Every structure is written in C-alpha cells, then in structure tokens.
C-alpha cells in the first residue's frame, strides 16, 4: 500500500508568541494536485516551509512521503518564490537546472565531479528542460529569458531529481496571463507523474486543473473538490474579501469589470464552523 503523500495531525506553529498555524490536520493522497489558498500572512508559506523541514513545528506530527520533513532530499521538488534568485546571476539555463541534482549534506558541497557524473547530470538536466519545453534554450544565460520561461526553468530544476512530490510557492506570481496558462497546463501534465502542492493567492489559477483545495488562515480546511464555491472563496480570501474580485473566477476575457460588495456581510471572514455549514449548502 502506498503512503499518503502528506499526513499532518494536530500541527501548530508559532513565530514568537502568536500561533501562525493551529490545529492543522491534512491527509493528502498520492497523485493529488492540491491548491493551498488563503490571505497573505495566513500561514500558506509557513506550511510549505514546514513540509520542507526548513522550520520545525511547535507541536503535532507531520510526515512527508512517509518520512520526517527534511529527510526526503531529492524526493521533493521545490519551487521557491520568484524573488529568491537575483536577476543577474551569471549562469546558463542548463547550469541552473543541474543544481537541482545537488546531494544533501556535506557530500553535496564538493566541487569535483567525475566526467561520467558530469555527463549524467547534463543529460538529466536536458531531459528536465525538454519536459518543460525549453531544451533549445539550454545554453542561454538565465537572465536573458522572460519571466515565464525562467519560472519553467525553476520547475525543471525542481523535477530534475525525479521527485514524487512537487511543492510550489506562488508559481504564477509575476508572470503574464499567457505564461500563466502555459504554466498551469505544464503542471497538469506533471501531475500525472507526481503529487503537487501549490501555494497561491491568485485564485484564477485554481481552474479545473487542481483536484482539491485547502484554505489556510491559521487553521486549514481541506475541500475535496476542484472548483471554487462561493463559500471556499470567502474562506480563502479571509479578511481581504473586499480587496479581491470574485468575478475573476468566472470571467474569462478582457472585459473590464467592477463589483461592489455589500457592506452588510457579517460572515465573510467569520468563524470556521460557519463556513463548514455553508460548504454543505453551497457545494454543487
């Protein structure tokens, strides 16, 4: 029997005093494509960092691919936020992808590689690049690529080690609309081979290609459905409901729109129990 990709029980985490995440429970089966939505500061990225073993939970248990976080090495592919790499770094596309093959621990630091190992790395990197459709760009400097292309290079770096689980932190932030669609199509395709967890505050990306949605705002609510209902939307938007336009979810195209919400909206950012009830009522 296969392990669930992720098992979280009664997890909490605090930076200093206040709990950023509290009473989080989640069981994610292998092969799923989970979108993690929620307001900024709601704990989405913290959840991802916990899964990667970059921070330790305050309490509760957490297993990733049946192992403790941080022990999984290349079994997890990770796409950090767009801003984590400086734009001018002197590196070729192929070189950047090959860095995804670095070994954990001190053995990964050594500068010297045998020619055979070097060749194997090169081939693996080229294969990953062809999966994201950028094999012809391998020799170019990374900084010469467009934002969308660069994001695909980082996806290639994440999948070059053949991971079983792909963790993506805001993959569609700072790329244009067309690249966004291409990225989502690519991720759907990758989902055939691996479980994907995608953190996003852009709800337009959650359109059909995901298999379930988790709303994170200190607590976590896992909805086993791939479409946004008004209730999930309200939960995901949290206190920022007025700042986000729900029409984006159903409107495709370029028609300008503006919807003013009712001010009398007592439960748009209320308690989780209320949302659970609404879920049942609003689910299609």
């Amino acid at each position, binding site marked *: 029997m296969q392990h669930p990709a992720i098992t979280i029980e009664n997890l909490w985490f605090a930076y200093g005093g206040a709990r950023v995440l509290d009473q989080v429970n989640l069981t994610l089966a292998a092969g799923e494509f989970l979108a993690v939505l929620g307001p900024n500061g709601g704990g989405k990225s913290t959840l991802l960092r916990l899964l990667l073993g970059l921070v330790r939970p305050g309490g509760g248990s957490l297993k990733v691919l049946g192992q403790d976080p941080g022990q999984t090495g290349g079994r997890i592919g990770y796409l950090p936020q767009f801003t984590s790499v400086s734009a001018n770094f*002197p*590196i070729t596309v192929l070189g950047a992808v090959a*860095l995804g093959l670095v070994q954990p*621990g001190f053995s*990964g*630091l*050594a500068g010297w590689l045998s020619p055979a190992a070097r060749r194997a790395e090169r081939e693996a990197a080229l294969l990953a690049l062809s999966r994201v459709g950028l094999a012809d760009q391998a020799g170019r400097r990374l900084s010469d690529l467009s934002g969308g292309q660069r994001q695909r290079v980082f996806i290639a770096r994440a999948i070059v080690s053949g991971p079983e689980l792909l963790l993506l932190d805001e993959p569609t932030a700072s790329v244009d609309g067309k690249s966004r669609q291409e990225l989502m199509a690519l991720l759907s395709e990758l989902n055939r081979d691996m479980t994907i967890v995608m953190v996003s505050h852009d709800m337009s990306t959650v359109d059909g290609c995901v298999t379930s949605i988790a709303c994170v705002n200190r607590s976590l609510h896992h909805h086993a459905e791939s479409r946004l209902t008004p209730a999930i939307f309200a939960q995901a938007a949290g206190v920022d409901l007025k700042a986000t336009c729900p029409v984006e979810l159903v409107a495709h195209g370029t028609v300008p729109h503006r919807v003013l919400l009712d001010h009398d909206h007592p439960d748009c950012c209320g308690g989780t129990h209320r949302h659970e009830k609404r879920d049942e009522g609003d689910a299609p």
Partner: protein
Amino acid sequence: MMDALGFEFFRNALLAGLLASVICGVIGSLVVVNRTVFLAGGVAHASYGGVGLAFFLGLPVLPVTTAFSTCAALCMAWVTLDSRERSDTVIGVLWAAGMALGIILLDLTPGYNSDLMSYLFGSILAVPQSDLVLMAGLSAAVLVLAGLFSRGLLVMSFDAEFARSRGVPVRFLHFLLMGLVAVCVVLVIRVVGLILVMALLTIPPFMAERRASSLAGMMLLSAALSAVFCVVGLYLSYALDLTSGASIIAVACVGFVLSLLLPSGRERIAS
C-alpha cells in the same frame, strides 16, 4: 614601466597586487552574488581592531589581523545566520566597534605610530618579502577552500532557500564564506588599505557579472580586471608620485564608469 621594474619594491608591489587581484576576483564574486557587500565592509573595517591589537602586543601585524578579522567575521556570520536582511544594525555596530578598538589600542601603545595610515589606505610600495610569502600562502589556502566547496558555494549563492530545502548545509557555507572574506580582506589591506578594500571587492565582480555566463567565468574575468587596475594604478602611482591604493581604486572607478557606458557583449549581439 620597464625602469620601474628594476626596483625590488616595485616588483614586490606588483606581485602583491596580482595576488590580491586573484583573491578579490574569487571572493569578491561570491560577495557580490550573495549580496553580502555590507557584511564584507563590516569585516574589513572591524579588522582594524586586529591592527591595533598587533601593535599593542608588539606582535607581527599580518597574522594577528588575520586571526582577529576571522573572529569578527564569524561573529557577524553568526548574527546574520537566520535573517540576513534584518541584521544590518548589528553589522554597523561591529563595524564601528572594531575600528574604535583599533584606534584605542594604538593610543595606548607607546611610541609614534607612523604606520597607522598605511593600513587605512594601503602601503603596497612597502611590502616586504616576508609579507609576500605569507600573502601567497593565505591566497593558496583561500583558493583551495573555495575550490573544495565550490559546488556548495554555487548552490547557496544561486538560491539559498532552494539549497536549504535540499539539505545542503547552508549555515556551514555561510560561515565558510565569511571566513574566506576575512582572510581576503587582510590580504588586500596591504594593497589598497581597509577603507578601499570594498572597491576592489565589488567593482571588478560587478563589471564581470553581466558579461560572464558562469560563476567561475565571473571570477576569472573579475580577477583579470583587478589585475589590470592594479598594474595601471601602480604605474600611475609610481610615475605621478601618488598614493598607490588610491591610484588603483581611481583606475577601477574609471573602468567602472566605462563599463556602464559600454553595452555588455550579449546586449550588443541582441541589438
């Protein structure tokens, strides 16, 4: 130029300048791509405490300063370990504290300290043979360490967050890099002085960054650029009777401005 080479002090100066160029090319590139220029500045200035300590104790300057600035660098590495962005205040304090300590120790040292300025602005034209040997040894050590851990340094420099997620010991690499910066700073103090170290650590790598397509290429190109600045600067210093460190930096700054005006190779091809 040829007549200048006839003097031993000039040959020593040239060798010291070339050694500093190689080391600045390698370490400066790492400093620039890791965005730790301010941290390197802190190490450079704090190392003045080591100069003061050496004079106060009556010990040889280069070894004592190396030990002192390595300690200062490891302190700063520790402070900046988990939040590189939020620790600039502490770096600023250590920066000033090191310099103040150096000056106070020099005040307490009996006798007239004519050498004080030479550590601030360089005294490349007075590098003795013994210092040159020590500089060569330290340079070799820095290069070997950087080469040994080059893969790790590359992975961390490119994307520390990703490196951490893959279990790469980024904390160790951070300490290693700061230690290398400390040794590099001490080597370069002789050439341009600790106040001007920053220019040699940042200008050539900045010029090289846009034109190289690998970190190793960036290091090579910035070492070559540094060497050119050192040779031209030294010659001008000899010919026009100027302070050597300041002449080298002046040449580097002219090169910097020219590189901003000239398009990089790739941009030329594109247009």
